[in-house]
């Protein structure tokens, strides 16, 4: 029965390789896996090799060649989730399901899998069950979910209470809470619906770009490229068509601010995408929505439908003759690397999310090889507000180099986790005071790829030029183990590297291995020098931003907490054992089916 449906699912898609991820997604949703038979069918339909289809399936977290169960639990594995009790929740899931994480229960009804940060760091531990988000999990709740699934209650029907704001709407019905802690004047200021589009289309496209340039708006995803300049470069390219692509794939562990914009301010975002389209001369905007936020898709589609009805999208958008513009939503499938703009484009085109070489840049050769401006959710929403209120208004906020406000996602050991819209230039100490994070041992600014700041650095400012960040802020309280944090971050990068280039693919594994040796108490001072040298090698030679920042957890803690590392290593240069001899012997004994002499650890 399943197979018959699967065949139709495949055949219903266009015979276009660009449809690859869409076909896989539908098959995965229907059958809980992409079987060998399905691989063959998809390859035949899209004129691809089976190896290519398997390549795409195995690249993404939420696709699988092997069965993932009739229902699938994806439990977030971020450091904050661990800090908030993930281990006990995971155990409860495993006990109730009757299988370990990474496996499917014997009855095939439930599969348990770990996944990288799902954008719920302010309400951990959290999980996605059949596309439905469950937050603030406890062992009891975990057991109840599995029991419910086994009894035939779909995940969606197990959401008994909903969060605030649009989370309550019938199209979302999520238990997610917004946790908006500080409303600033830019994103959360009073905004007349449609004002940005109407104002944009009354101006010349160049004037729109000019206003954004004068405001000094820098990309909010973290890289900080001047937005106006990007639009200008894109507009200047001679091409039959140009695209606006909105990067709604915030995957940096600890970030969730775009979730709040997508939930509460989608109109503002779409206004920003539309004025960007007008500015660069595009007909189509593409919202690349991370799979973890698929629960917001119906809500977003409904907002787009409203905008079309109001004449703000579609033919003569905003009433402007000749400006025909619409927005489509493309879904991701779980891959941190797809937050990198060129990997995102590859994924949007239905391929493995592997970054491209630059040059050419996306403004020259982007989506479908046409000039494309890829902008972050927050950047586009901010641009809409700038156009309405004016560049001068915006520039008056923040610092000289970093104009305006920034949305921060604060999580971890603080009393008030959530979203804060603050002016650039705020110190880490100032933020800790706002969020109730007194006594913090360290603050991770910018997520794993950012900087681990020790108390001595709490006077540093959040802005470009000092602590630049896409907005992920994780607070670590006095009892936290820095090494556990670093290890989690390195695991994350090893897991999320696309594997294209050597230094990122193998270098991070080597870095993590040597780090483990140091933390295990078997390292020497030369290992610390290696960590630094190899870290710099990976940063210097990697192909994209992932590898260029992946050693940061080790490099920035070596700098902030040198005393912790110094206390771990053997002073005796070069004479320590590189591995745990006892553990190695035990492995050997287990392989030979013989009990080791020393039995205590085995009977614990």
């Amino acid at each position: 029965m399943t197979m018959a449906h699967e065949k139709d699912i495949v055949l219903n898609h266009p015979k276009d390789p660009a449809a690859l991820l869409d076909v896989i997604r539908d098959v995965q949703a229907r059958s809980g896996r992409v079987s060998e038979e399905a691989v063959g069918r998809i390859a035949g339909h899209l004129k691809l090799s089976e190896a290519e289809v398997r390549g795409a399936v195995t690249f993404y977290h939420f696709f699988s060649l092997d069965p993932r169960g009739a229902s699938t639990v994806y439990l977030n594995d971020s450091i904050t989730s661990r800090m908030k009790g993930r281990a006990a929740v995971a155990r409860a899931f495993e006990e109730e399901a009757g299988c370990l994480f990474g496996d499917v229960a014997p009855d095939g009804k439930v599969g348990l899998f770990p996944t990288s940060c799902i954008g719920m760091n302010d309400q951990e531990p959290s999980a996605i069950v059949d596309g439905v988000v469950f937050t603030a999990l406890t062992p009891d709740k975990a057991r109840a979910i599995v029991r419910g699934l086994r009894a035939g209650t779909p995940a969606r029907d197990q959401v008994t209470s909903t969060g605030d704001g649009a989370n309550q709407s019938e199209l979302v019905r999520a238990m997610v809470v917004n946790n908006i802690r500080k409303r600033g004047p830019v994103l959360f200021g009073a905004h007349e619906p449609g004002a940005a589009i109407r104002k944009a289309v009354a101006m010349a496209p160049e004037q729109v770009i000019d206003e954004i340039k004068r405001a000094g708006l820098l990309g909010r995803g973290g890289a900080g490229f001047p937005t106006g300049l990007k639009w200008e470069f894109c507009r200047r390219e001679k091409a039959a068509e140009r695209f606006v692509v909105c990067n709604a794939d915030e995957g940096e562990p600890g970030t969730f601010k775009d979730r709040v914009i997508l939930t509460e301010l989608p109109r503002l975002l779409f206004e920003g995408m539309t004025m960007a389209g007008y500015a660069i001369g595009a007909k189509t905007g593409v919202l690349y929505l991370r799979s973890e936020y698929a629960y917001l898709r119906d809500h977003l589609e409904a907002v787009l439908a409203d905008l079309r009805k109001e004449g703000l999208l579609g033919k003569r958008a905003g009433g402007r003759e000749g400006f025909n513009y619409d927005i489509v939503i493309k879904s991701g499938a779980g891959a941190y690397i797809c937050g990198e703009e060129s990997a995102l484009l590859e994924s949007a085109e239905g391929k493995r999310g592997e970054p491209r070489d630059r040059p050419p840049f996306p403004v020259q050769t982007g989506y479908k090889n046409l000039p494309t401006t890829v902008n972050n959710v927050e950047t586009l929403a901010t641009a809409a507000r700038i156009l309405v209120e004016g560049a001068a208004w915006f520039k008056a906020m923040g610092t000289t180099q970093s104009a305006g406000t920034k949305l921060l996602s604060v999580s971890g050991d603080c009393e008030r986790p959530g979203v804060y819209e603050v002016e650039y230039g705020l110190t880490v100490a100032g933020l800790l005071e706002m969020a109730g994070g007194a006594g913090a041992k360290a603050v991770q600014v910018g997520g794993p790829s950012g900087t681990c700041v020790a108390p001595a650095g709490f006077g540093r400012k959040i802005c470009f030029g000092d602590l630049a960040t896409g907005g992920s802020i994780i607070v670590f309280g006095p009892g936290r183990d820095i090494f556990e944090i670093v290890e989690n971050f390195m695991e994350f990068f090893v897991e999320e590297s696309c594997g294209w280039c050597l230094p990122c693919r193998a270098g991070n594994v080597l870095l993590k291995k040597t780090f483990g040796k140091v933390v295990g108490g078997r390292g020497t001072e030369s290992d610390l020098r290696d960590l630094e040298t190899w870290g710099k090698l990976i940063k210097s030679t990697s192909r994209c931003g992932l590898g260029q920042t992946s050693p940061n957890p080790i490099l920035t803690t070596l700098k902030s907490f040198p005393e912790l590392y110094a206390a771990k290593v053997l002073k005796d240069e070069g004479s320590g054992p590189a591995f745990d001899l006892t553990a190695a012997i035990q492995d050997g004994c287990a392989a030979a089916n013989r009990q080791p002499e020393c039995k205590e650890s085995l009977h614990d």
Partner: protein
Amino acid sequence: MTEIRFTIDGRACVAKPGQTIVEAAKANGVYIPVLCHYEGLKPVGSCRICTVRVAGRFMAACTQPVAEGMAVENTAPDLEDMRKSLIEMFFVEGNHFCPSCEKSGNCELQALGYRYQMTAPRFPYLWPGRALVAGTPLLMLERNRCIQCLRCVRGVKTKDGRKVFAAVERGACVTIEMDKKLAGRLSEEQARKAMDLCPTGAILRKETGFAVPIGRRKYDHAPIGSDVEKGTGR
């Protein structure tokens, strides 16, 4: 067509518009080591061995176009040591046993190891477990020696454009998969080409081997890169 003027380690060079640093260097008799790059295939920058420095920034010379006035650093000691590190990293990432390999003497990774006077790698060996694929009539894929340069992915296709080789999985788990159905349909000539494309001994033509004895192979005579440098010294 206007010529682009640039320098490599201070030496004046000229390039055609659109040429990458690697191509232009070669045309000027300067060798920049490469592994993933193969003439005629779209460069992908996967091995990073060709990393050079321009105005303080590192970049892959195989993908970066030359620009007017560019000052390329190619043989600075720190750069050469980074390259040597990457070569060593390849040796610990896979399982490379040169003496028993059919490609020994024709292997570009081995040749680079010699050129960079590599002895023992500075990194710990990872000893990955990698499955060998032999279920096709003409070719076998010995993944222990695969360096994921993606040459086969780019260069071996069927007449209707389907890729015979593709990358599967992600991160450290990435492997190259040979599509058995399509590989089974390759002609003798295509199979030979696939083996020649592979810089190491990962893709092998079955049933023949050691046609040229070790000692009389490509890099047994002269180090890799010396053809480029011929007449220019180093």
